[in-house]
C-alpha cells in the first residue's frame, strides 16, 4: 500500500502531463477558426510563426486578404504603406504581409507550401529586392528562421520526381546548417535524388503533419507583434476620403522632408541614428564591387515563379530602386543595377509574367525611399498607384510559358557581354 502511494506521488503528475500532451498534439481538433481581430493582427505582424505556419494564412486567404510577399521593406510602415492605405481608404482587399528581413525567394517558396490550395486562382503582390541576388543567394541562417518542419512535411506528401521538386529538395538540403530532424532530411534527400517515398515514410509524414498542424493552430498566434496601433496612428495622419493622389503626394513629400532632416542622404532620422551615423564613413565606396547579376537567387526565384504558375496565380511584381544619394556615396554601380533589372525583367516577361512595376529608375526621387534600400512615403504611394487598381480589378487568367532554363547554372551566372548578347538574341 505504502509503495503504491509513493509511486503515485512520483508518477501521477507524469502520467497526467503525458495525457495532456497527447491530447493537445494527437487529437485533431475541429478548427473553429481564428477570430477576425486575430487575422487582422496577423496580417500586419510579419510574425515568423505565422509565416512558418499554415492555419492563419489559410483562413486569411479565404477572406479578403492578398499576400504581399517581400522582405524588410514590408516593415517600413509609414502612412503610405500598403496596409495603411488599404485600411484607411476602405479598399475591398487587405494586404497579408509575408516576409521580413532575410526572407528571399526560397523562403517564400517554402512559405507557400501548405496554402497552395488556397492560393489557387488568386492574386498576389511580390516585392523583389535586388539585394536578394547576391553571390551566395539566400543566407541559410536567415532561411531557417522562416522554415518549419510543417512546410517540409506538407511538401513531401505531394512531392514527385520532377525538376521543381528535385531542385526545391536540393536547395532545402543546402540550407540545413544543423540537422534538426534527420528523418525528414532523409526523405528530402530521396526526393532530391529522384526517388520515391515509401509507404512507411508517408504514414510517418501523416502522423507528423497532424501533430505539427495542431501545434501551428495552437501556438502560431501566441507571440505576434501587435502593429495595429502603429497602423492606426499612421492612418490617422492621412486626409479622409476621397483619395486624391496629388494631395497625398504633397503630404508624402512633406512627411519625408520632416523625417529626414539630420543627414545628407535624406534617409529617415531614425534609421540614420540607429544604423548609419556611427559607421557611414567606413561605407564610402564600399559597395563598388557589389554584384546582383550573378546569383543562385535567379534559380530560387524561378522556383517561386513555377509555383505561381502551378497555382494559376495572377501576380504583380514590384522592383524597388536604391536610394540614389546613398548609392552614389557607396559606389554601387548603376550599370550593374541596370543589368540586374534587364535580367530579372527578361526572366519574368519571357515566361508571361508581364505585370511588373519597375521602379528601378526612381531612386533619385525625393523621399521615395525611407532609407537606403527600403521604400517609403512617396515610393509606397507610387506602388499604390499600381497595386490598388490591380487588386480592385478582376482576376485575369494568366498565360505563363515556363522555361526550365532559368534553373540552370548558366543563367544564374550569366552577366555582362554574355548577358547582353543573350538578351539581344532573344
Amino acid at each position, binding site marked *: 500500500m505504502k*509503495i503504491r502511494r*509513493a*509511486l503515485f*506521488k*512520483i*508518477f501521477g503528475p*507524469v502520467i497526467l502531463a503525458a495525457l495532456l500532451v497527447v491530447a493537445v498534439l494527437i487529437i485533431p481538433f475541429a478548427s473553429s477558426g481564428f477570430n477576425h481581430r486575430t487575422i487582422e493582427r496577423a496580417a500586419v505582424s510579419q510574425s515568423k510563426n505565422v509565416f512558418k505556419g499554415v492555419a492563419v494564412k489559410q483562413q486569411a486567404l479565404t477572406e479578403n486578404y492578398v499576400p504581399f510577399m517581400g522582405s524588410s521593406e514590408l516593415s517600413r510602415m509609414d502612412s503610405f504603406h500598403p496596409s495603411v492605405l488599404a485600411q484607411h481608404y476602405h479598399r475591398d482587399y487587405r494586404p497579408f504581409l509575408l516576409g521580413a528581413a*532575410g526572407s528571399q525567394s526560397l523562403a517564400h517558396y517554402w512559405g507557400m507550401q501548405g496554402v497552395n490550395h488556397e492560393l489557387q486562382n488568386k492574386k498576389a503582390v511580390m516585392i523583389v529586392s535586388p539585394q536578394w541576388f547576391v553571390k551566395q543567394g539566400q*543566407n541559410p*541562417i*536567415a532561411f*531557417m*528562421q522562416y522554415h518549419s518542419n510543417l512546410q517540409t512535411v506538407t511538401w513531401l506528401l505531394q512531392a514527385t520526381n520532377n525538376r521543381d521538386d528535385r531542385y526545391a529538395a536540393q536547395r532545402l538540403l543546402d540550407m540545413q546548417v544543423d540537422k534538426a*530532424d*534527420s*528523418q525528414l532530411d*532523409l526523405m528530402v534527400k530521396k526526393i532530391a535524388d529522384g526517388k520515391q517515398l515509401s509507404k512507411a515514410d508517408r504514414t510517418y509524414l501523416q502522423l507528423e503533419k497532424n501533430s505539427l498542424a495542431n501545434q501551428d493552430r495552437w501556438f502560431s498566434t501566441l507571440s505576434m507583434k501587435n502593429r495595429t496601433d502603429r497602423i492606426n496612428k499612421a492612418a490617422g495622419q492621412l486626409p479622409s476620403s476621397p483619395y486624391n493622389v496629388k494631395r497625398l503626394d504633397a503630404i508624402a513629400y512633406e512627411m519625408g522632408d520632416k523625417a529626414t532632416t539630420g543627414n545628407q542622404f535624406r534617409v529617415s532620422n531614425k534609421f540614420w541614428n540607429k544604423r548609419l551615423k556611427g559607421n557611414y564613413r567606413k561605407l564610402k565606396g564600399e559597395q563598388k564591387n557589389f554584384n546582383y547579376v550573378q546569383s543562385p537567387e535567379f534559380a530560387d526565384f524561378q522556383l517561386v515563379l513555377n509555383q505561381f504558375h502551378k497555382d494559376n496565380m495572377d501576380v504583380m511584381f514590384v522592383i524597388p530602386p536604391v536610394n540614389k544619394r546613398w548609392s552614389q556615396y557607396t559606389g554601387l554601380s548603376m550599370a550593374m543595377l541596370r543589368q540586374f533589372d534587364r535580367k530579372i525583367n527578361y526572366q519574368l516577361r519571357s515566361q508571361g509574367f508581364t505585370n511588373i512595376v519597375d521602379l528601378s529608375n526612381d531612386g533619385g526621387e525625393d523621399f521615395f525611399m525611407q532609407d537606403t534600400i527600403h521604400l517609403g512615403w512617396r515610393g509606397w504611394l507610387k506602388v499604390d498607384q499600381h497595386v490598388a487598381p490591380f487588386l480592385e480589378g478582376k482576376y485575369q487568367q494568366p498565360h505563363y510559358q515556363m522555361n526550365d532554363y532559368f534553373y540552370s547554372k548558366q543563367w544564374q551566372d550569366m552577366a555582362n557581354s554574355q548577358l547582353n548578347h543573350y538578351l539581344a538574341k532573344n
Partner: protein
Amino acid sequence: MISMQPYQNPTYFLYLTVALLPIMIGLLRGKRYRLYETVISLAFLVLTFGGNVWIQGVSLIGYIIYEVALIFGYFHYRQKKNASWVFYLLVFLAIVPLAIVKLEPVFQLGKISLFSFLGISYLTFKAVQMIMEIRDGAIKEVNLMLTLQFLLFFPTISSGPIDRYRRFIKDYTQVPDQDKYLTMLGKAVHYIFLGFLYKFALAYFFGTVMLPKIQMIALAHHGLSWWVVAYMYCYSMDLFFDFAGYSLFAVGTSYIMGIETPVNFNKPFISKNIKEFWNRWHMTLSLWFRDYIYMRLVFLMMKKRWVKSRVAMANIGYITLFLIMGIWHGLTWYYIVYGIFHACAIIINDMWLRFKKKHRQAIPHNKFTEMFAIFLTFNLVCFSFLIFSGFFDKLYFMH
C-alpha cells in the same frame, strides 16, 4: 533505418519509458534482470550507432575491443610488474584513437577517421581512468562483463557524466533497497522534467530562437558591437541549459536503472570565483582532470623535485590541465585560448586568495562583495564561453 541521438526528441523518451518499465518493476521487487538490462542496453546502442550511421557502430566495436584489450593486458601485466614506461605507454595507446579523431580535421588524414563515433571522448576518459587505477592498485580485479557494462552504459555514453569504475560496479552489483530506490525514482522524475525545461524550453529559446538572430546582426556589424555582448550571454545560456539538460536526462535515466551516476552541474553561475565555478560546472570532467592529470602531475613534480615552490607547482598543473582540456575540445585557436584563459583566471584567483589571506583585516567581506564576486565570475565565464564559441573566428577571420 535512422539512428537516434540520445534524448534528442520525444520519440526517444517514449522508447526509453517502455524499455525502463520492466527494469523499474524489477528493482522495486528487489531484483535486477541482468539479461534484460543487457539486451536493452544493446538495443539502445544499436538505436544510436546503427541505421544510417552504422559506420560509427563498427568504429565503436573496434574501439571497445582495442581498449578492453589494453585494460586487460595491463591488468595482467600489473599483477606481476610495475614499470613506469609500460604504464605511460598504455595510457598513450589508450589515448591514440581519440587523438587521431581530434587531429583529423587539422591534418585531413582521410574522409572519416577510423575511430570517429559519438562519445569517443567519454569512453576514453573511462578507459584511461581504469588503467590509472589499475596502476594504483585501486582496481583489484577486472571482469569482462562488468567492464563492458561500465564502458557502454548507454544513458551516459554520448556525453557523460563520467562515472568511476569502482563506484559504478558497486551500484551495478547491488540492488538498492526499496526506500532508497523510491527516493531515487523521485529524483529521477525531477531531474528528467527539469531536463525538459532546460533542454527543450530554455536551450531552445536561447539557442534556436535567439542565437541565430543575434548572430546575424552581430556579424552584420563587422566588428565589436553591443550585439557581440548579447551573443556572449545568449550563447552562454544556451551552452549551459543544453548541456545541463542533457546531463539531467543521463543522471535521471541512470537512477531509474538503480545506478547513481554523479551529477554534472550544481548551479555553476552562483560561483564566487573561478575555482568554485569548476567545482560546479561539468563537475565529472573537472574532477577527472583534477584526479588524473592535475594531482598526478603535481605529485610527480613533488616526488621528482622538479619544482621547488608549491605555488609554481600548482600553476604548472593548472596550465597543463587547461591546455589539455582546450586541446581536447579540438585543435582550433579558440579552444586553446579558452584553455589558457581559464588557466590564467585560476592562477590569478589563487594569487588573490593568498593576498586576501594575508590581509584579512584590510579587505571587507559582506553581502555586497559576495554579490560582486558572483557578478565578476559570471561575466568572466561568459566571456570565456564567447571565446569558446568560435564567434571571433567568424567575426574576424572568415570574411
